[in-house]
């Protein structure tokens, strides 16, 4: 049932570790980090630091530019902190330093072209005040990226029906349809709906773990972050 057995995702911890040891980040590693962290960083600066959208935009761009240009990651020690905690600490330090200087950093290159600040701004309007915006947004971004990965993967291997059923059920904004309704709607037996959902959820988990491995320093941090990501 549910397709071939898949082992655990191939980890990409080495990107973070090598980035830490080299002090600067490889482009590939930075793309992964920015993809996961730009939105948590932006919302964290907007809500926790109470900055205007323009200020927050500049600060976050400046922060990720500094990640490339400065030796910020040289201080990351996987035995002392998780990468997420370290990055948040660096961001807070960066914002404080900007306050002291009271001027803006020059913007960096295209590494942060993937940041859609306007979309993030629209989301903030509907975001209730939460204690740890950074953590919550990190969880949200991890799953949002994994969903994108899953959708793309399903299209690539021709399992769009599976994704459609998964999206209709697990991403339903209002009342979830019953399995029978979904089966009738897509013209498949109810057992297939169950199987498709189980498959898609397994794949989603795999995608999340793959993303997680690219922004953690090793197995032990990855397992600890899994608890935060999936834990209640």
């Amino acid at each position, binding site marked *: 049932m549910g397709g071939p057995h898949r082992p*655990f995702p191939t980890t990409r911890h080495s990107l973070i570790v090598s980035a830490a040891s080299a002090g600067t980040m490889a482009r590939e590693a930075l793309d992964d980090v920015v993809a996961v962290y730009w939105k948590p960083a932006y919302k964290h600066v907007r809500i926790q630091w109470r900055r205007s959208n323009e200020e927050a935009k500049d600060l976050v761009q400046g922060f990720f530019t500094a990640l490339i240009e400065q030796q910020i990651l040289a201080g990351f020690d996987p*035995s002392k902190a998780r990468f997420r905690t370290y990055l948040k600490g660096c961001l807070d330090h960066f914002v404080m330093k900007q306050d002291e200087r009271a001027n803006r950093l020059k913007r960096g290159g295209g590494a942060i072209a993937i940041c859609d600040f306007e979309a993030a701004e629209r989301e903030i309007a509907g975001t209730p005040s939460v204690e740890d915006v950074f953590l919550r947004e990190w969880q949200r971004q991890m799953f949002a990226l994994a969903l994108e990965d899953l959708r793309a993967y399903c299209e690539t291997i021709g399992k769009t029906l599976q994704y459609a059923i998964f999206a209709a059920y697990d991403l339903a904004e209002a009342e979830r349809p019953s399995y029978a309704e979904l089966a009738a709607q897509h013209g498949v037996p109810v057992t297939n709906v169950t199987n498709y959902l189980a498959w898609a959820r397994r794949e989603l988990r795999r995608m999340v773990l793959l993303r997680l491995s690219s922004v953690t320093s090793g197995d032990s941090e990855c397992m600890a972050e899994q608890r935060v990501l999936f834990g209640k």
Partner: protein
Amino acid sequence: MSYLPDRALDHLRDVAEAPDFSATRYRVEEEIGRGGMGTVYRAWDTQLERRVALKVLNAADRVNQEAILLAQLEHPGIAPIYDAGTLPDGRAYCAMRLIQGRRLDEFLRDEPALPARLRLFQKICEAVAFAHNRGVIHCDLKPQNIMVGEFGEVFVVDWGVARTEDSAPALSAGTPPYMAPEQSGAGAQTVDTRADIFALGQILRELMPDPPPRPLAAIARKASAADPRDRFSSAQQLAADVGRFLDGLPVSSYRDTMPERLARFCRQNQVLLLLLGAYLAVKLSLYFLAPALK
């Protein structure tokens, strides 16, 4: 990329984490614990019609190791393993006996008497000693990993980071303050059964009253000495020393002072001393009252 509302996010977190046991004989009932290595569920074994504890591990290779180690350890103080396997998503699981009882730290909140606590501790030592005799080191002994059953039976659980003496060391396995100094960092190469003795010493500290009796404090101090060479060489020795304390005998880890030795002798020979005292009193009274008795 569309925005993921809170409701959808929470639902996805749940469904991505929930293990898929549909192809197995188990039906998950509820989550009963979550630890460093994975999650434990209470489940119903549809084939044998009994409740079991299902442990789903985050890392695929560790569960097999835990299952294999547990299968070697058939002891009344160690929860037996029934079954092991792999879920479709690659996560490994094992089915174990579902322990009906409380964790040691919860059990201690009822403040049972010291002898009862120490007898419980001896049972823990016996289970650990059995594992050590089979060459298995628990590596994460702590009150949260010890269950006390309804009838005072003790189970050492969560062998997730356990290893055999000859296997490669798991770096930084364990939980402070129960983690021996050699378990963290580079010293992990030298971890042996004495790492568990250290944890047992720390557990013993939690069982002691405040202030603790000096011999008992000395036992705990010796068990959790920073240098493994200064600790008890086996869990049996530790249990035996605690047993001697319980019997009011001198313990190997503590040298009594003369008044303490005297007090112990008097405690142990109360009746004899009382009778000898009575005999002397009778004789002296008769001697001094002799003229009056004539």
